């Protein structure tokens, strides 16, 4: 078939501006959509698809897509292969064996069922579209003061949980990068820092110091600084009972 026989291909070439191409291709989102489009346009009987003609048209569309540098996804090539395979099967003359089944399996049957199945869901999507139209024209608005915990409204699904985790991981990575750029603190600086803290507090939780340490090195420095202050008998470590949290208390006024 020549291009002149296919008005749609001409349309493609005439409106080669980028936006119009995108729109056109969106209406054939996948290979099945393109086949359905061709079948409807040519008013073809779905149960008797002229496979040679359809294959030719399909391949023309593929060529145009390639010419326009549109990334042709794998499923498009798969469908091309399927069409060519069906075409070749149909060209082979069927050997008549009267003792076998009268009707040979038509090589197009599977594709036809796939197309019908696809059309079925396209229709279901149309139905959802119409329903959405209707629902878009109503509003439901409970009064604001009826929402007791207004800022705490997150209906939780597994997807939310995973998204939340991903956010945390992302933030963690960013923070690590930032810290690597920061200058590291020395034990002497940390001792001064802890002494300053005990000017205003008599008791602090051991864990509160460790919580501040965002890097491993910072953690070690903090730990060593605390041990040094214990050695100097400026602070003492104790537990109220076994397994309880470790507390740090000031033992003498620091200079």
């Amino acid at each position: 078939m020549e291009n002149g026989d296919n008005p749609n291909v001409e349309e493609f070439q005439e409106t080669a501006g980028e936006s119009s191409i995108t729109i056109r291709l969106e209406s054939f989102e996948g290979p099945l959509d393109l086949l359905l489009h061709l079948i409807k346009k040519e008013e073809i009987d779905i149960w008797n698809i002229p496979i040679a003609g359809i294959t030719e048209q399909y391949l023309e569309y593929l060529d145009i897509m390639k010419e326009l540098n549109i990334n042709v996804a794998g499923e498009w090539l798969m469908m091309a292969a399927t069409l060519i395979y069906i075409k070749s099967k149909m060209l082979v003359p069927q050997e008549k064996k009267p003792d076998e089944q009268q009707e040979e399996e038509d090589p197009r049957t599977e594709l036809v069922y796939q197309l019908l199945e696809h059309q079925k869901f396209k229709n279901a999507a149309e139905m959802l579209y119409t329903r959405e139209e209707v629902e878009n024209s109503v509003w439901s608005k409970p009064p604001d003061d009826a929402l007791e915990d207004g800022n705490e409204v997150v209906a939780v699904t597994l997807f939310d949980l995973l998204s939340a985790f991903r956010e945390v991981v992302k933030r963690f990575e960013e923070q690590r990068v930032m810290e690597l750029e920061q200058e590291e603190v020395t034990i002497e600086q940390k001792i001064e820092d802890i002494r300053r803290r005990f000017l205003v507090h008599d008791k602090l939780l051991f864990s509160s110091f460790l919580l501040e340490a965002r890097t491993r090195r910072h953690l070690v420095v903090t730990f060593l600084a605390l041990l040094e202050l214990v050695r100097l008998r400026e602070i003492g470590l104790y537990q109220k009972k076994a397994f309880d949290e470790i507390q740090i208390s000031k033992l003498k006024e620091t200079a």
Partner: protein
Amino acid sequence: MEPVEIQAIMEAIIYVAEDPVKPEQFREIFPEESKDILDQALKTMVESFNARPGGMMIREVAGGYRMTTRPEHHERIRTYLKTRPSAKLSMAALETLAVIAYKQPVTLAEILAIRGKKSSTALQTLLERKLVAIVGRKAVVGRPILYGTSKEFLIHFGLNSLSDLPTLEEFSQIAGEQL
């Protein structure tokens, strides 16, 4: 309590509720009343509320009762709210959603097989808009994630339950006629 008072409270509760109110919830609010009395009160209230020539209506959505404006007034309401129609789902998202709605629980690979093309972007949109949820894993090699529609799906499309959807056979009939 007088039926008329029960009805008034039911109306007020449907008004303040964020989600559709299920009949069972009324039994918690009125523990002293019988199920029959509450069901009757609910039915009478909804009928008379909707028989008014007012601007609101009470609809059965997602197994509960929900107050909304009437669709015929949408233009003037939109003028007042100065909102544009909310972002509609793309045709790809609607098709993916249709496959999930009718074939649930379904895996991404099964969706691909029916649609004949990759559907992960559409699925991502549907998950973000909470129309679709992860409902489990299929007991096959690789244990792929199974997807299904959510309560939000019913609300978004004004359905009381999944059985309100037309059957797939109806669509295959139409499909046969179209092709």
